[in-house]
């Protein structure tokens, strides 16, 4: 038996009861206070501090690993010939995939008027940004000469009249990812402005006042402001929507445009996009479940949110499963020796266990989400979200490594073994992600205050 904020008991298991997207009993002020107080409180929770320190420590692994990488070169990793791409590209695709949920939740669900998205969109967008930041690191550091790759991949006018090679998917990647990062940032920031203004108004500390004052860009909440805000937000949502599809499509072209068996497949764009949303929602769940626990936000991030996200996961997971099946089918049906060998090698070759573990993580275990009991069991849901995260990482590993390590000429076959530097870089980006994320929930409202207020009955006044 759960209780409402005003201590009224409520039976959530009662038939016909649909968990609301915001628990009953809040008024406008309470919503603002509850979210803003997490930030404006002067005493920092020990728990937050502890986790932040750990995340920061892990981030320093990344700094160390990348520092050493710049000193020595990419040879500190396990890559070789034939496996020219390793953890860096696996992690890149994984992080980019995670970065999909934010925009999907904010933009597509906004356009589809899915009001339940409101309480999770802000931190999902933040997650997107930070995931894209982590992802964006890899294409740069994975190059042999990052100090040149940092700008030679951009079409800047120069006296040599040398341009990037626009036929290369890597160039498309540069544009896709940078566009996505910029639009996501603008979208996130635009959405933040009214909330930041609220924080500015509530802040007592002069530094906080100044900080939020600058960020709020003079927001006064006038009707004209709101009108322009709504227009801009809607436009940005419209702009972001195709990007959700395009970014991972372009990322998949990195593989699909090549001639490598296991990469060269027309199924890749939809299959990658579905996978991205799948892993993105898994990551949102992975973050939302502990956060709503830690910051007592169960009223705003309710079981209904979790339930809905689990359903999206189940749906996209099925698309991904279809992708795997299609790949295997094509391997056989194409009657192409290289393709067929590739799929056999993927399943039964030296990396076979990885493949089956990925099937277990991405297809078998998530089937339990068909059951409402599982979807409403928060700890199990949390575990499944972790399993899907692992599975999606394995998927990228399997695609990148098993396709490369045995391609056309058997004489050149090899194996890929990640080194400690590979692992340090990978875990380090998780540290970077968590560090940024914890800074975010400490200084910015993790839930859109004004949007939450629109969910209240008071906001739905009919004139």
């Amino acid at each position, binding site marked *: 038996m759960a209780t409402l904020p005003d201590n009224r008991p409520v039976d959530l298991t009662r038939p016909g009861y649909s968990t609301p997207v915001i628990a009953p009993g809040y008024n406008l002020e309470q919503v603002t206070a509850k979210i803003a107080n997490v930030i404006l409180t002067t005493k920092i929770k020990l728990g937050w501090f502890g986790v932040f320190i750990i995340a920061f420590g892990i981030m320093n692994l990344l700094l160390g690993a990348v520092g050493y990488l710049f000193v020595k070169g990419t040879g500190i990793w396990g890559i070789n010939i034939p496996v020219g791409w390793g953890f860096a590209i696996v992690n890149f695709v994984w992080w980019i995939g995670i970065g999909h949920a934010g925009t999907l939740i904010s933009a597509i669900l906004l356009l589809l008027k899915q009001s339940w998205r409101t309480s999770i969109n802000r931190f999902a967008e933040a997650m997107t940004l930070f995931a894209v930041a982590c992802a964006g690191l890899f294409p740069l550091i994975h190059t*042999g000469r990052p100090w040149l790759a940092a700008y030679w991949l951009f079409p800047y006018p120069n006296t040599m009249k040398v341009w990037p090679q626009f036929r290369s998917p890597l160039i498309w990647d540069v544009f896709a990812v940078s566009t996505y990062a910029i639009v996501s940032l603008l979208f996130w920031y635009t959405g933040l402005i009214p909330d930041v203004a609220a924080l500015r108004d509530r802040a007592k500390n002069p530094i906080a006042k100044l900080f939020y004052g600058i960020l709020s860009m003079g927001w006064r909440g006038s009707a004209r402001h709101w009108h322009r805000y709504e227009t801009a937000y809607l436009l940005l949502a419209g702009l972001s929507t195709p990007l959700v599809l395009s970014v991972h499509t372009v990322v998949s072209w990195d593989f699909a*445009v090549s001639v490598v068996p296991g990469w060269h497949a027309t199924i890749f764009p939809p299959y990658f996009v579905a996978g991205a949303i799948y892993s993105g929602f898994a990551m949102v769940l992975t973050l939302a479940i502990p956060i709503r626990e830690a910051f007592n936000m169960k009223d705003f991030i309710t079981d209904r949110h979790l339930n809905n996200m689990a359903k999206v996961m189940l749906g996209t997971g099925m698309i991904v499963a279809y992708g795997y099946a299609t790949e295997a089918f094509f391997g056989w049906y194409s009657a192409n020796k290289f393709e067929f060998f590739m799929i056999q090698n993927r399943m039964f070759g030296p990396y076979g266990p990885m493949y089956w573990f990925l099937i277990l993580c991405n297809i078998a275990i998530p089937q339990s989400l068909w059951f409402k009991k599982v979807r409403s069991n928060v700890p199990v849901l949390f575990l499944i979200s972790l399993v899907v995260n692992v599975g999606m990482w394995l998927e990228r590993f399997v695609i990148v490594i098993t396709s490369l390590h045995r391609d056309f000429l058997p004489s050149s076959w090899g194996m890929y073994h990640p080194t400690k530097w590979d692992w340090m870089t990978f875990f380090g980006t998780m540290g970077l992600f968590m560090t940024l994320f914890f800074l975010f929930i400490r200084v910015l409202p993790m839930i859109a205050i004004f949007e939450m207020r629109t969910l209240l009955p008071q906001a739905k006044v009919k004139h």
Partner: protein
Amino acid sequence: MAQDSENDLVRIQTTKKDLGLTAEHAREKLSGARGPQYWRSLQELTEDPEFDAMMEREFPRHASEWTDPVSRRGFLKLMSASMALAGLSACTKQPFEPIVPYVQQPEELIPGKPIYFATARPTPNGAYPLLVRSHEFRPVKIEGNPDHPASKSIPQGSYPAELRWGVTDAQSQASVLDLYNPERSQNVTFRGDTRTWGTFVGAIRDAFGAERGRGGAGLRILTDTVTSPTLAAQIKSVLQANPQAKWYQWDAMNRDNARTGAKLAFGQYVDAQYRLAEADVVVSLDADFLSGSHFPGFLAMSRDFISKRKLDLAGGEGEAAKMNRLYVIESQASTTGGKADDRLPMRACDVEQFAGALANALGVGGSNGTVKDDHAKTFLNALVKDLQATRGRSVIIPGEQQSPTVHALAAAMNSTLGNAGKTVLYTEPVEIVPTEQAAGLKELVADMNAGKVTLLVMIGVNPVFDAPSDLKFADAFEKVALRAHVGIYHDETSRLSHWHVPMTHYLESWSDTRAYDGTVSIVQPLIEPLYNGRSAHEVVAVFSENPGVTAYDAVQSYWKAQNKGATFEPFWNRALHDGFMPNTASPARPASARPAASALAPVNDELEIVFRPDPTIHDGRYINNGWLQELSKPITKLTWDNAAIMSFNTAKQLGVKDEDVVTLELNGAKVDAPVLVVPGHPDKTITAHYGYGRTTVGSVGTGTGFNAFLLRTAERSNYAAGVKVTAKSGERWRLALTQHHHLIETKKWKEDVVGSSQVGNEAASRDLVRSATFEEWRRTPGFANEGEHQAPSRDLTLYGEDGYKSWVDDPAKNAAHQWGMAIDMNSCIGCNACVVACQSENNIPVVGKEQVLAGREMLWLRIDTYFTTPNTNDVSNPRAFFQPIPCMQCENAPCEPVCPVGATVHSPEGLNNMVYNRCVGTRYCSNNCPYKVRRFNFLLFADFDTESYKSRNNPDVTVRSRGVMEKCTYCVQRITSARIHAEKETRKVRDGEIVTACQQTCPTDAITFGDITDKNSRVTRMKSNERNYTLLAELNTRPRTSYVAEIRNPNPEIAVTPEDHGHTS
């Protein structure tokens, strides 16, 4: 030491400026003397190691060529100027870059244009005649001498005479790296402390003086096999003056068996020279004559052998086509066995039995050997029939490691078959004084133990490491009062010697030598000694009346004495220019072999160990050579190590697998070795290559391999039965293979070796290697282009009329030339010479064992080896196919469109260019390359720091830095240079004017390069061959590199089952 009278001395003009401590030292020395002072180097003058270090930097750049008076004058001027500058730099401590223009330009030198000098690389088996490319008087690239009978290539058909080239072997190619090795010994040392040459001469002459009274009774000279007439004459004259002194020769890979066998057969020492161009049937009794320069006469033998397999050259195409047949009976898995038409693997001790049986069947007499199984009997009968049908056109070659009996039997069989004088000639041995070396060494050890030896001088040998283990050389060695070692490197022997004198590399000293056929070459230096080395001639001269004689004087005066009269000068110049003295080949002796009478060794059934020289580092002499260390050994594909090589069955019986460490025990001696299972290796025998496991060695050789010499005794130096193998549980030794062996084509192999969980055996269905038997080819000449692996039609395009157009067809894209390459699989013997040539030409770095293990070897050209067992399902006897893989230079290159910065682009001439300074290193191009020919600088592999190696680099090729992709360019620097040359003469580049490094060095002319738009070019003719095919054609990459399918000529009577169809692999 300052008073040493030297002919080739340099006069130093000192400056009066303050030159710091070192210079003050020098001035002190100078002021104490009167008149002009001469010294060979500042190290001698100051005895200062720092100056010595500086000398290393200074010398290579301006070292000169001494025969030409103009360049010598220029050199003197340069040296004096650079010395002065060197001194100045010492006090200012600023980065020092002397830029000294030629005051007087050497007549023949055009800066940027290389000059070629003829010389020869002496080896115990005879010299390898060379033309060495020198850039600004730095030897950079070794090439074969095109005129020398031992190194000229297969006649190039329509090529004009000036477009011929010479061929070489892998070790010769790599020898230039040894020259510049900064770890060569650089100072005369006495018990490890630096001394001068003068002190050494004084000490040795003191000790020698005491010996002189008793006829030199305590003096022993131990050299490696001497093929230098001058050195032999010098030593002989020392021995004449000191009749009690003795001279021994020792090489671990000696030819004692051949010598003893010749004694048995002919009563005298002879060299057998095989004329394989005359032989239609070649039988190898464990003779690995196609593997490399450890086999005497390797270049000529492989050239002649393959010339009979060039189906377009040997007997014309079609009905007239003829092909020789190679039978190999062997005790290991060698390239010779891989190329065999019919191969019979057996243990080394059984080869003698087989030879006995063969001799008996051929009616030679002697004892009959036993031939064990039915297959061997079928083989024998078919072989006998074939040999009898080709009398006078066949030849039987005994292996160097086979017993004297086998050599004697082979000689007798060749006589009986009428081959002697036709396909095999018997001549004077290549060494000046042939000996049975192990017996000599035994005598020396006995003398040392008896205390008879007071002064032991060792030149170019390392007996402490490589002497037979039962002689206990090191123990006896300690009993010698004064031990002097002369060698290029510090080694096990120098460590235990009193004196060590750095020896000159052959590229930096005068000498002479004989090729395997006896033809004499003058060894002409290309550079001043880099590290104060002394040649063997100078060392031996210490014992003569004239201890100051230089190598140059010694060699010249020897030949002056041989050619008395006024004609010497032109003779000498001619010899230097040509690189050899014409008509000095040893004449054939009319020798008739006696029927072999000696009994065959009893048959045993124990586990056997076979000792062989390592295919790349030989007896350990090249262990400090990174190129040879990283060169994957033929068949095994092993780098940086040796291993206990065995068959799958033997490994199964012993319960071991690859990389397991086992203890090999033989007569109480033990050594730990890693196991390597190799397809085609006979059962019940283990091959151990010696030369590895050295203890006193440079950084390159440190920690590589195990020492097989520990098991090798004087009596059983080639193979021994009764080796005990115990697995050391849990111990593993990682072996850096560049290619794995699970690629053999049989179901059984897959099940037995690879294991069902592995998805192996893909080479077969991918049709990478195409071959047929001679008969099949006669029936279906176009077999290589049947089947499904064909390039899609050019009309199959989305782009309609403007669709795919070849660079050749499309006039808009058409440059004056379109380059292409054809590789004749029939000719490739997998000897690796091209691989090292490519490394040398293109400044390819060495990465080390760890990086090879990580899969990052950098070689642009590799030799893929595939196995197949067409006739039987027997994995112990596969055929091997060698497929050199350079860049395919695809017309539709998958690497090009994926590069985000356009660092790899197509040239109008059809090359797939790599722009190093544009590359940012995404490695996408390599991922997308179906042939995996691209190599990436994962770390800073190129050596930018070692001063001496900077001089070694080919100045025409960029040295690649970290983070950059690189690949084969068809030697674009050679193409460009030829194009510029042609443009100056306003003509097109002629066919044969451009020779790629791999093509140039190939002993069998397997590689053809040229313009594919020229209808008459050799490459066009090769590509128009019906057997021509491209790799992975179905990908529509349109490679410019194509392969000519291999034809084997097996005896139909031996084949168990006929080959099912043309595509055997």
